[in-house]
Every structure is written in structure tokens, then in C-alpha cells.
């Protein structure tokens, strides 16, 4: 565009040397670049305003039920958003709560990025936990490095295997992955319950949970707190995935497959192959999350090992705009709200389900606000048509 400007060149310009910045030749180029930068900045500012409006809307909507439950909304929000951060112990709890959400959020983000709607993070997380538990119960005497590597690897493989069914059905037969991944969630929960009520029932207590794992299956703790190494694994995965998607040709093709499958196919990209691989990786990440949860937090398999982590992962990925930074921040935020909700249940007698209500409302208001921000009233459109505003 800039090289083909209509003005004749003021003199012989060496072919590879760009004209100086103040040259009239460069002026349109620079103006275009400035306009693009301004537009991008405006877009970002608009999105930020929309998200802030959505946050305010969420607070306004949830204030009603909080008051109806007999609590003061201001006190409740303080518990949800601030109190956990005022103590070291609170921060530790938030980090622990955010770790599974990092895994499931990343898992969903990878799949969504490729245009594969994996709604089965819940099931993959559960079978991942089952896989790690199977290793821990059968090889209790393995040395720690071997034990942990095997447990986490088997957990991830179980997640991949659980995802293999919907992924294969989608790419081979075109069967909607939303339905198949969803239907496998209750099945995975039944697998967990079946094992806990059957072969894995605790022989000492008779309760439906496994015995505690041997010490070699406990993930190392960080900084002498209860935060476990799973957090580092999750962050590492998020960063590596983010960098790979942003900088490599494979990442670019992945985005093309998700955003414009027709165009991707026409330019010779193996669309189905990419979707299959993205789906399997997604299942593996969710499964790894389940394995990390049993090895890092509970040290045994229980029925309630997943507090809706798979479904919340969809919230994390969507609110995080499928980006590495976004997923990290939203996972931390939802971890914070989750811990805050537990605290509010104790101190304000506000059922902790309020935390889930808040995250679901936030999801809906944010996705709505991001669309609504492109709405323009009719008088505005008329003004633009007249050329009055830009």
C-alpha cells in the first residue's frame, strides 16, 4: 500500500532503503498505522468498559438473593473478593482452589480454539483422578519420582482415552461432540461411584472413599505452605500452550481451523486432524488436572473429587477469551470467589452456592456485554451516515 503511493518518487531511492520518516512518501503509511493503533486501542477500551459494566450488572443482580438470604451484600462481596486475600492462609487456599480450574480452563480453551466443543471436562477430570488412583493403590511402594510421574501420566492418558470416543465420533462420523462429551460426564461419575462402592471402598471405615495414598504419591509442597507443585505444572502448561499457539505455524493453523474451517481446508490444512489432536490434548489436560487433584490435595479418591470443575472450566475459558493470560486470571478470580463463598457460608450463613451463582451470572453478563458493545442507537447511525462522527 505504501510503496504504491501515487506521488512520483522525488529522486532515485535505493531499492531496499526506506525513505525517512518525514518523507511525504511515508505519510499515508504512518497515518494508516496510527489509525489502526487507535482503532485497536479503542476496541480494547470498549471491551474493558463492557466487562466492567458486566461486573457491575453481576453485582446488582446477585445483591437481591444475598439480601433475601438475610445477609448484607456489601459484607458478602467483601468476603467473596477481599477477605481471602488478607491472610497468607487465604491466598494459599485461593491458589489451591484455582489449580484445577487452570487445568480444566486450559483444556476447554484448547478444544474451543480448534472449534471443538468439549463440554466433557468434568468426565475427563474424573477419569484422570481414577487413573492416578489406580496407580497409587496398586504400586504403593514405588519411589516418589517414579510414582508421581506414573500417576500423572496415567491420569492424563485416561483423560485422552475418555475424550477419544467423542473425538473419533466427531471427526470420523460427524456426530455432534457436544452431546457425546456431555453424556459421558454422568457415566464418568458412575465409574467413580462404582469403584468407590466396590473394589476401592475403604476397608477400615467402610466409607465410599479410597484409603489414603502412600506418601510417595503426595505432590511436593511449595514454600512450606499447602500449595502443591500442581500449581506450577498448571501454570507451565498454560504458558507453554499460550506461547506455542501465539508464535508457531501450528498455532496459527489451529486458530484458522477454529475460526474459519472452510478457509483452512481450502488452504490445505488437515482440519479434522487438527481438531482430533486438539480434542485429545484437551482431554489429556483435563485428565492431568484430575490426577493432580488427587495427588496434590485429597490424597485419596472421593465421590466429590470434582466440584463441577469441568463445567466451571467452560466459564474460565470463555471469560478468559481462550487466551493464556485470560485463563490464568479468571481461574484465580473464580478460585477467589469459591473460597470467599465457603467463608461467607460460615460467617454470614450464606449458602456457598452463591459463588456458583456469581460465576455463572458473570459468564452470561460478560458474553452479553461483549456483544452489546457493538450496538449503536439509531440516531448514532444516522450521525455516522452523515459523516458527522467516525
Amino acid at each position: 500500500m505504501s510503496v504504491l503511493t501515487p506521488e512520483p518518487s522525488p529522486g532515485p531511492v535505493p531499492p531496499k532503503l526506506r525513505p525517512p520518516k518525514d518523507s511525504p512518501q511515508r505519510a499515508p503509511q504512518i497515518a494508516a498505522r496510527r489509525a489502526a493503533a487507535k482503532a485497536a486501542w479503542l476496541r480494547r477500551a470498549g471491551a474493558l468498559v463492557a466487562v466492567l459494566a458486566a461486573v457491575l450488572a453481576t453485582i446488582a443482580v446477585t445483591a437481591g438473593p444475598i439480601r433475601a438470604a438475610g445477609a448484607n451484600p456489601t459484607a458478602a462481596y467483601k468476603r467473596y473478593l477481599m477477605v481471602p486475600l488478607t491472610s497468607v492462609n487465604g491466598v494459599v487456599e485461593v491458589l489451591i482452589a484455582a489449580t484445577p480450574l487452570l487445568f480444566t480452563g486450559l483444556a476447554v480453551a484448547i478444544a474451543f480454539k480448534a472449534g471443538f466443543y468439549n463440554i466433557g471436562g468434568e468426565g475427563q477430570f474424573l477419569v484422570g483422578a481414577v487413573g492416578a488412583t489406580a496407580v497409587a493403590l496398586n504400586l504403593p511402594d514405588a519411589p516418589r519420582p517414579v510414582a508421581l510421574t506414573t500417576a500423572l501420566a496415567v491420569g492424563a492418558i485416561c483423560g485422552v482415552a475418555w475424550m477419544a470416543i467423542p473425538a473419533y465420533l466427531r471427526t470420523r462420523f460427524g456426530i455432534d461432540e457436544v452431546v457425546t462429551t456431555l453424556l459421558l460426564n454422568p457415566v464418568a461419575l458412575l465409574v467413580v461411584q462404582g469403584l468407590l462402592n466396590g473394589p476401592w471402598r475403604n476397608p477400615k471405615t467402610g466409607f465410599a472413599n479410597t484409603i489414603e495414598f502412600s506418601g510417595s504419591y503426595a505432590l511436593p509442597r511449595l514454600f512450606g505452605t499447602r500449595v502443591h507443585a500442581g500449581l506450577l505444572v498448571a501454570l507451565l502448561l498454560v504458558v507453554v500452550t499460550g506461547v506455542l499457539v501465539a508464535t508457531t505455524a501450528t498455532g496459527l493453523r489451529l486458530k484458522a481451523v477454529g475460526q474459519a474451517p472452510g478457509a483452512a481446508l481450502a488452504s490445505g490444512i488437515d482440519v479434522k486432524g487438527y481438531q482430533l489432536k486438539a480434542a485429545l490434548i484437551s482431554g489429556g489436560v483435563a485428565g492431568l488436572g484430575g490426577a493432580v487433584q488427587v495427588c496434590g490435595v485429597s490424597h485419596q479418591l472421593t465421590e466429590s473429587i470434582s466440584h463441577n470443575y469441568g463445567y466451571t472450566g467452560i466459564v474460565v475459558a470463555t471469560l478468559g477469551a481462550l487466551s493464556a493470560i485470560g485463563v490464568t486470571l479468571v481461574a484465580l478470580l473464580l478460585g477467589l470467589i469459591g473460597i470467599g463463598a465457603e467463608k461467607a457460608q460460615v460467617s454470614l450463613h450464606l449458602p456457598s452456592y452463591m459463588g456458583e451463582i456469581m460465576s455463572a451470572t458473570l459468564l452470561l453478563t460478560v458474553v452479553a456485554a461483549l456483544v452489546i458493545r457493538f450496538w449503536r442507537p439509531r440516531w448514532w447511525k444516522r450521525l455516522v451516515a452523515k459523516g458527522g462522527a467516525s
Partner: protein
Amino acid sequence: MTQTLAVLTMMLTVATPLVFAGLGEVITERSGVLNLGIEGTMYLGAFVGFLASGALHSAWWGILVAMLAGAAAGALMGLLTVTVGVNQHVAGIGTTLLLVAACNFVSRLKSSGGASEQVPKLSKLFGSTAVIGQYPLTYLALFVVAPVIWWVLRSTGMGLKLRAVGESPEAADAAGVSVPLTRYLALTVGGAFMGLGGAFLTVAMLGSFSLDIVSGRGWVCIALVIFGRWKVWPTVGGALLFGFAEGLEKQLAITTTFASVPNELWLALPYIVVVAALIIWGRGVRYPGAYLKAYKRA
């Protein structure tokens, strides 16, 4: 023989909520909106139906209130997917998460733990005779609701408009059909049936409420609609197939031959049957033309 009859009795009872909710989903998807809020809407219907039938001392009033609640949930989906036009997958999952959490919140406020109370519930007709002794809602579903929806979709102007909006909203709009109004109507009516399906679980089958009452039945309905290719009778057939699998599972689980098979495997069987049915009959289906697409006038 008695076992066969027991399986068939169970089949009809289990299929009833799926017929209601599945046909509700047929209506909404035929208008071009995938309502993944179905799981949450059924949960809402189950919970609200339970509360209302206790408060109003009548199962039928409970069912009516549950239908209104379901319609409201459908209107919420309409606000998100029709008026605003957000991604339908995200809107549906978000609606389900919101409704389930909201019901659990209220449930916890009402009763701080402990056993769930019993409320007035429907009783079976014909003195609970095998197979024909069903809840009145079962007869309503199979002999009134399904034929009426089939007839409305196939043979009335309203049904034609609904299908037109789901296949080609541009053409429908050009012909003078209001796309938003039609979709709102489809979502509220469909939502009311989903609420009714949910209410059947509490007000007819159990008479009480528990947190795992719906346990994926809404997702089953989504599968049934694909399996039924967005047609009324095949979807009803799919619901009966699921009901048959569950009835069979309940019967086989109590026979001595299979005593060693864990109960959870039986419980998982209906879901696996649905996935298998999708693999066999769900390939290469043709989705409604405007499926998942928000409509905006150019």
C-alpha cells in the same frame, strides 16, 4: 412375563419426562436455537414444582408453576441468544449452571440439610395395573402433547413459520414473519415443556427433591433430538428406547444371574445406549439451516 410387564411399565414412566423435555427441545431447535439450558430448566422445573406443590397443596398447581418457571428460563435464553445474540453453546451452559446453582441456593436456605420432605404427588391411574397403570401425565405426553406438537409443526401456519425461521430466517423475515418473536415463542413454549418434564420427576415419580434428581436427563434429551432428527415421533421413540434401557437395567439388576454386576454399571447403561444409538442412527444428520446462528437484519 411379570418381568417383561415391569420393564414396559418402567419404560413408559421413565420416558415421560424425556418426551416432554425432548419435544420442548425439538420446538426450540426447529426455530434455530440450541437450548443447552435444558438441563438447568428441567432442574428448575423439578425444584419449583416440588416447592409449589408443597405450598399450594396440589400436585397440579405445582406442575403449572413449574411450567411457568420453565417458560421464564426459556425467555432468559431468548434474551441471550435472540435479543443479544451470544454464542448459543455458552449461553446454554451458562443458563444451566446459573439455574442449578440458584435452585441449590434456595434449597439450602429452605432446609439446612436433613431428609427431603414429601409433597402431594400424583397417583397412577387404573389402580397401578401393569403397563396401563401410569401417571396421567404419561398419557398426556404420548396421546395429547406429542400428537399436537406433531400436528402444529407439520400442518399449521404457526408450525410452518417456526420451521421457516429455523431453516432460513432471511427468507422468513422477507415474507413478513418476525424472527425474534417466533424464536421467543419457541423458547418459552419449549421451556415450559422442559419445566413440565422436570416437574414430573418430583411431583409424579418421587414426591421429593434431591440434588441429583435430573442427573444428565437434559443432556439425554439433546441427544434424543439429534437421534430423532428434529422430528416428533422419532424423538418420542428415542425417549421410549431410553426408558426401555432403564427399565431393563432395573429388572436385570435385581435378578440373581447378574447380582455380581455393580449397580453403577446398570445406572450407566441408559447413557451408553443413547451414545450407541447416536453412533448407529446419528451419522450424517441434517441440522436445521439456521442452527446455532443468531439472526440480525442486514
